[in-house]
């Protein structure tokens, strides 16, 4: 009953750190899930926007542009750190992985600090009015995801620093960048909507 024809795969590589890995695909789909969630939030923002004449509502100080715009610089640069880390992961270069991940995390922390400083200038909360509710929801969910990803990055630094970086862990470094690129990229439309939106789609 034993089949005579066989397909011997012992010569195939036992792993691959690339965009062909199942984990990379899984991470991509996780980003798509968050992306759909964020798209719903953007749609909601405009739904609320077009149903009123004055936006933001009277009494709400318009959001400043300087701090969030400056904060884009460390955020976008941090993606470079991610990229360096994935190159290090592919070449099994421990130092490059550590340098890239550290640059990623430090620049992202600068971004978060600027964001927290900016939040202190807001004169509204999520409970003030609908503008506050939707803006805070967007900011909160994005910040929450950023912190979650930074935690993941910190754990990866620990794993690599501890010398536990086998192929599976290096693949982890590689796919960590997928989520980080996503969080950087998705922030750009959010930034335009939340900060430029009230200016571009002006009060009627």
């Amino acid at each position, binding site marked *: 009953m*034993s089949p005579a024809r*066989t397909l011997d*795969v012992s010569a195939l590589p036992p792993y691959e750190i690339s965009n062909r890995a199942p984990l990379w695909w899984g991470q991509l789909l996780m980003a798509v899930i968050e992306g759909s969630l964020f798209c719903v939030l953007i749609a909601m923002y405009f739904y609320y926007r077009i149903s009123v004449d004055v936006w933001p509502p009277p009494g709400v100080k318009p959001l400043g542009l300087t701090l969030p715009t400056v904060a884009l610089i460390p955020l976008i640069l941090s993606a470079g750190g991610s990229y360096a880390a994935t190159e290090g992961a592919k070449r099994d270069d421990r130092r490059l992985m550590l340098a890239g991940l550290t640059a990623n995390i430090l620049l992202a922390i600068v971004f978060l600090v600027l964001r927290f400083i900016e939040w202190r200038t807001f004169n509204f909360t999520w409970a003030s009015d609908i503008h506050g509710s939707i803006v805070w929801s967007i900011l909160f969910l994005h910040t929450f995801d950023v912190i979650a990803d930074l935690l993941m990055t910190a754990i990866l630094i620990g794993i690599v620093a501890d010398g536990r970086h086998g192929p599976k862990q290096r693949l982890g470094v590689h796919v960590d960048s997928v989520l980080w690129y996503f969080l950087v990229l998705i922030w750009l439309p959010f930034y335009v909507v939340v900060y430029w939106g009230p200016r571009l789609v002006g009060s009627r």
Partner: protein
Amino acid sequence: MTHPLVTPAGPPRVWDEQQDREALARTWHDPEGFLGWFYATTHQAIGKRYILTAFLFLLAGGVEALLMRIQLARPENHFLGPDRYNQIFTMHGTTMMFLFAVPVMEGMAVYLVPLMLGTRNVAFPRLNAFGYWMYVMGGIFLYANAATGAMPDAGWFAYTPLSGPQYSFGKGVDAWAQMITFTEISALCVAVEIAVTTFRLRAPGMSLNRIPLYCWSMLIQSFMVIFAMPAVMVASTVMLLNDRTIGTHFVNPAEGGDPILYQHVFWFFGHPEVYIIFLPALGFISAIVEANTKREVFGYPALVLSQVATGFIAFGLWVHHMFATGLPQIGEAYFTAASMMIAVTTGIQIFCWLATLWSGKVRMTAAMHFVFGFLFIFVMGGLTGVMLASIPLDLQSHDTYFVVAHFHYVLIGGALFPLFGAFHHWFPKITGRMIGERLGKLSFWLLFIGFNTTFFPMHILGLNGMTRRIYTYPASLGWASGNMIATVGAMIIALGGVVFIVNAIASLRSSVSAAPNPWNAPSLEWSVESPPPDWGFTYQPVVSSRSPLWADPALRTVVTGMRNDRREIMVTGVAEAEPQFRTVLPAASLWPFLAALGISIGFTGSIFAFSWYYVGAFLGALGMIGWFWPRPPKEIEP
């Protein structure tokens, strides 16, 4: 197809199958004992748990339905009070949609898809276990709240403003809203696994045009889950729960919020949800029909493409649930057209199955009885669906029993009957025991007659003006006889359910063990023994046709050269499924359970105070660090 890597038929290779099986058993077996139960990550174990848990919730939802039918049997009945009735119909809808229908379809997929694709597990086994635990904890969370008095009572969709902070007091609606998050996380986990498993882990040679139709329907369903489920989390958690607990204004018109937007976001999920439940059922139908007509399903490309089209159109239908909300008519007309279009894609599939049945040699197993039940009931539900797509008719029958009849015809006919068919069809594979055909057919007839007796009169009751969600009615309206007939029908359904359960238990205990392929079916899950071993395939098959088990046995090819001392699987190309590289799945672990428990603690607290989210995030992060932390040597070595 000849594969560049296939050794041509020459002298047979020699290997020791028994030795390989022993090695694989050591590698793939989940830990034993009570604690070991929480470690399990094989897809068969997790899939069976999903199915069993979902059936328990079906039982709960069924009992709730019976309570409603008893209340409505006679006019001016006082079996349930108005408040209790609201709670019961809310629990019925919520249980059936979120705790039964979606999870049972996910569970079947978790069990079947890896075996049908010829691989050893899903792509992310620990995520799979995590998803199951989230689902169980969500179910416990809802029912524990209900048992302590916090029973939601605003319907399975919890429309605002009724469900909002001004009109719904207590924690019932909060529990409803957060239960959604639990079950959606679970569904999303499965969707990602199934999609990646289908794209990357198929047996060598199983190119896209050779994927079993059931796996196609699950792939499409997974993408629908990925795009639809985030919307309901926004509706239930961001909008409703935050309005109720931290004072946001998403549904509060006084501060610029809008209750209609809640409906939009909810139905943007809610309509695809119906197809999320229904597409896997179509996959069951294809598999059962194929095995029992002894021919390949007619029109494979047409079936796949119309299911893909269904997946797309499903996202453009949601407003037909909102025709009565006074939206602009131009927009509504578009949704009428889209709703009627879905009849085309569904019709194509029905005709493909009819053509298969017509030209095949039909064997009337119990499973096939359910297929014919599906065809009859579902087509009727589809016809009332086309009627309801028309705005004038919908406005007249909106919120009446006509709609109740329609969606029970579609959901029970379109999903439950195929599911029961699938249960009878794959029971031998999953349990290793043959299912009792005679009792299976008896349960079919009871369910079929009971179903039509219950729900057909509801069409007439609805057209006579009986509205949904009323707890009683005066005798003078003339609805008494229709309701009494419906209640008698519900009792017949219950009897059918009892026969179904008795049959399942008796068959489990019987000594008639199942052969690997009792139905002579063509797909790969039937090539391994019943029940399959933890590792699925001792030697992964190489596929060269759409129905591999009907191919010439002399041409069968298997994969060798995989390591047996760790959970190795093979990754193949997306389009042609050519072997690319091997990869290692993680071993069994307690951490997914602990992570789910930590997050559940946070979610449970979050209906009382927002800060509990941080507790959940912290505990969940701890769990996930434990989950990911590499343990030498096996998790680190190349």
